[in-house]
């Protein structure tokens, strides 16, 4: 499964969006799609578990979870070992 599809699956399970994840583009604003800061915590824990990474404090900003693209680039950066 490619990374974006995995991210979409995690969003479906944890982000509690009011919009349907399948209708969102990779750059769609997830906060406008109804994600709360509480949901973003669960989302982060699921991402860490799935991709076996740990988001460092410096990345834990609102914009990290802004879109599928922003999540993807953070995951890629961490998997490449640059933390």
């Amino acid at each position, binding site marked *: 499964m490619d990374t974006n599809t995995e991210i979409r699956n995690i969003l479906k399970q944890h982000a509690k969006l009011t919009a349907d994840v399948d209708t969102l583009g990779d750059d769609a604003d997830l*906060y*406008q799609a*109804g*994600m709360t800061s*509480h949901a973003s915590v669960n989302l982060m824990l699921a991402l860490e578990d799935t991709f076996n990474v740990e988001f460092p*404090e410096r990345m*834990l900003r609102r914009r990290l979870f802004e879109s599928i693209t922003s999540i993807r680039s953070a995951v890629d950066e961490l998997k490449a070992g640059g933390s």
Partner: protein
Amino acid sequence: MGTLSREELLRKIHKIGAEVIRPAAASVDKEARFPREAFEALRAEKMLSVYVPEQFGGIGCSYADLAAICTALGQYCGSTAMIFAMHQIQVACIVRHGNTPYFQGYQRELVEKQLLMGSATTEEGIGGDVRTSSCHVARDGDSFVLEKKAPVISYGEEADEILVTARRGPDAASSDQSLVLVRKGDTVLERTHTWDTMGMRGTCSLGYMLKAKGHVDQILPVPYADLSAQTMHAVSHTLWTSLWLGIATDAVNQARAYIRAEARKKPGTVPPGAFRLAELVVELQSMRQGVQGATRDYIEIMDDRDALSGPSFTIRMNNLKIAASRQLVRLCADALQIVGITGYKADSKYSLARQLRDAYGAPLMIANDRILGNNSTLLLVAKDE
């Protein structure tokens, strides 16, 4: 920085406090009325715009000065200090995020007319989470209408403007909020809840059905999520705790004055309460260090909007609120033990009744248990202290 030094500012505040605010405090408390004489005096010294930058005509005081003013006011009347702090929280949102011609013009107007700003963030049916709204901004061309069932709008009937949270539009998610300035002439408030409380009675925090209209320029240009993370959350907690520090200082000063009077009655002996007073002063110093330290932490990263929105800083500000509100209650209760029955009387000059009743509001306004719940979630993701 600013047109007045901290010393000059505090001299003015203490003068107003001693001459106007303290003499009115008992009647404000008893009648649960707005401290109008306090605000007349504060307006005369242009204190409502003390934090507005000089370029718009304000005094342009530093954030540390603003916190010091809240602490000074807290020593005279908790309700007056709380209203002043709540007003300044709204002003800080405009100063820091209102970089549009409309909001720059509004700051000039605030200076000139010494306008008082209120806030309507809570809403019926949202379970107390101010980061979600049910009501929404209904746009029609350049204008909007807004209706909100607000269980609490402090000094709503006295405020010239109210900053209201609402969903950005009819289809926006509950967490996708805007902050909207509504003005007195365009706003109707129908009372729905009373405010006959144990303490903080002068804040007049009644509930209302709010109906307002206005121009779309009155909607702040940043999402409320950012505004809250970068400004409102930290400013609320640092200014509230600053004024609570003032109430605690007042209570401890009452105990000190009482012990001194006791000592004068029997020269050469140390009054029995003096030992407890020594303990009390330890606690007050700890509270002061906590409040002033956290305020300095905020000032240090105030312009780093990125760091402000991180979970560690949010937890830090939440901890400040929890710790200071608990310390305030403890300090006032312990001061009462020292002063004894004289402090228990409402009409004695060593009375601690109002301070203690006001103090009990601190752990409840945004309940500490709710904040601890938020922290326990954030601690799952925060990586360092």
